């Protein structure tokens, strides 16, 4: 054995003595750590995918990562919970006031901004990092199938978005319910909360699938953030502008139906698409004076188009994600 190897072996030996954690016997050299076979139970594919989901979900909130990774999710979570807290305080100080925030769309502009930033920051964390660090071969060399990785990441990110959207709703509900007396009132609030949670799930699924697909296009975090943030933000702005133009034209004409432009402008952005979906589901096409600048979605008679595009976008984004990981190189 060459001298340098002996030196290296000696180093191992002394380090083993120092760490001295049980498995090392009295001689205290590394060669005396017997290799232990693993003959116990091995988990199947489903359990492995669950482990990957749990790992990814935690990483979306920076858990078990550095302090830097926790800042943005924590800030955004605090921000999106703020209306629920304010509402609870308002109700507590004046029990007769009505809730200032609704279960349906919470505060859509706040939710839009918070979720836009959350998706733009955390979707790259979930998928771009593995691309950037070439970690994928370590996954695909293990007992999972190609499709398991994108599916696990998607489920994890949907759960992360659900946490961001639904927990504030539940806090809102608790704040309201705590000021109410009688089972019937609580039941009434519970009935209202249900559709709100469902609608929140629509947000989570759409944004998570689009966000992950865009993030999976590049391994560079900044590029991935731009690939998500820029289209989501500017399509949102564009939808507003076009809706405004459409509404102005409609007002000038003074006829009973909003122009096609005003009704269809909401299809441009996922956020206004979600707004339109809500109006369609509520049977509230927001014609004419019902228009509000922060809730711009006027859908006219095009409600089913919103529903179809919503479903189509989710299917396309998930299919795109799966195809992406079928083709991704492991070299």
């Amino acid at each position: 054995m060459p001298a340098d190897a002996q030196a290296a072996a000696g180093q191992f030996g002394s380090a083993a003595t120092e760490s001295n954690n049980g498995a090392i016997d009295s001689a205290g050299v590394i060669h005396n750590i017997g290799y232990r076979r693993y003959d116990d139970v091995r988990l199947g594919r489903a359990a492995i995918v669950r482990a990957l989901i749990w790992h990814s979900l935690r990483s979306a909130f920076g858990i078990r990562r550095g302090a830097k990774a926790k800042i943005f999710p924590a800030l955004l979570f605090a921000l999106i919970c703020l209306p629920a807290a304010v509402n609870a305080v308002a109700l507590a100080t004046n029990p007769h006031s009505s809730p200032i925030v609704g279960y349906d769309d919470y505060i859509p502009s706040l939710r839009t901004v918070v979720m836009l930033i959350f998706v733009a920051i955390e979707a790259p964390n979930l998928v771009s990092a593995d691309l950037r660090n070439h970690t994928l071969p370590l996954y695909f060399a293990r007992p999972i199938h190609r499709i398991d990785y994108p599916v696990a990441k998607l489920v994890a990110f949907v759960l992360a978005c659900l946490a961001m959207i639904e927990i504030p709703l539940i806090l809102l509900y608790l704040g309201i319910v705590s000021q109410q007396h009688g089972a019937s009132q609580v039941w009434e609030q519970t009935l209202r909360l249900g559709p709100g949670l469902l609608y929140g799930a629509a947000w989570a699924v759409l944004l998570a699938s689009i966000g992950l697909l865009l993030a999976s296009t590049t391994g560079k975090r900044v590029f991935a953030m731009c690939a998500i943030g820029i289209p989501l933000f500017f399509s949102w702005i564009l939808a507003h502008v076009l809706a405004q133009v459409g509404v102005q034209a409609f007002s000038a004409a003074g006829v009973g139906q909003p122009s096609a432009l005003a009704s269809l402008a909401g299809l441009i952005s996922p956020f206004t698409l979600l707004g339109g979906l809500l109006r369609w589901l509520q049977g509230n096409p927001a014609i004419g004076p019902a228009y509000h600048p922060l809730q711009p979605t006027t859908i006219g008679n095009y409600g089913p188009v919103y529903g179809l595009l919503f479903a189509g976008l989710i299917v396309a984004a998930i299919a795109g994600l799966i195809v992406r990981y079928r083709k991704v190189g492991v070299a």
Partner: protein
Amino acid sequence: MISQTMPHGGGPARHAAPDVVIQTSVLTKRYGTAVTALDELTVVVGPGITGLIGANGAGKSTLIKILLGLLEPTSGTAAVFGHDCVTGGFAIRTLTGYMPEHDCLPPDVTATELVTHFGRISGLPATAARERAADSLRHVGLYEERYRQIGTYSTGMKQRVKLAQALVGDPRLLLLDEPTNGLDPAGRTAMLELIARIGTEFGISILVASHLLGEIEQICDQLVAIDAGRLLRADTISSVTQASAALLVEVDEGVDLLQAELVKRGLTPAPFQRGLLVQLAGDETYDAVRDSVADLGLPLSRMEQRRHRIEELFRTDPALADEPRADVPGSQTMGAPSAS
């Protein structure tokens, strides 16, 4: 242990016996029409440490990826532990650990977290994954450092983490792709000893790809050499080196006289550097050389058994094997052997 079948399929394909770890049959992989990474490779590998050597681009990584079921061969078959690589990739991946050639570690997690995570992805329950991660990291020689983020590690430590994550699932077979890449000589030796220990003491079969021949010679039981996707040679190290062991004899003067004398005694000495290279047939060869030198009264300055470096063994022309070449073991890459 290891055997070589004819590339163009003389006999029926063998069924995987218990002593067969890897078996390929006329395995071909083409990328598009221009690049042929593997060209009708037929080889059988048994347990123990097997060196897979070839120059860069010879098809080593491609072979490993096909064995893991990550790449589909263009034609031919490959099997690991009797599982077909195309249809049984999932089963193969439960039995193998893979250490990629390139950097594959996230910088912002600790080694413990990374190896524990990949233990879970290997199918270990949470507690077992933690225990085996700690064990694996200790086996590769990482102690307190394992709680530091990988981004702060040296190249040698990163290579050890890569090995630990391959080891964590207690595989039957390790596929190591250029494990000494980027290491300094000391780190290289330490890594090779680690691999040798895993192969011998842990009882895990290992296929270790390398373009460095000196390393392979040090740690492997068997050898598979490929060039341009074709099999050059597959054999045990001892049979490869035994067949060609030679005696290097140096005298300060009278080399010609000695050569003539040795020829008279029925040996085949060949001039090599400043001395003569004599094919070693046994103890009688030593006696013959000793007697020749004594009879001629020549000043003998050196007589040593010389193992051919493996690259020489792949040369089919014996004259080429005696060409002088750089004499630094472990630092030579395989220069396109002239196998025909």
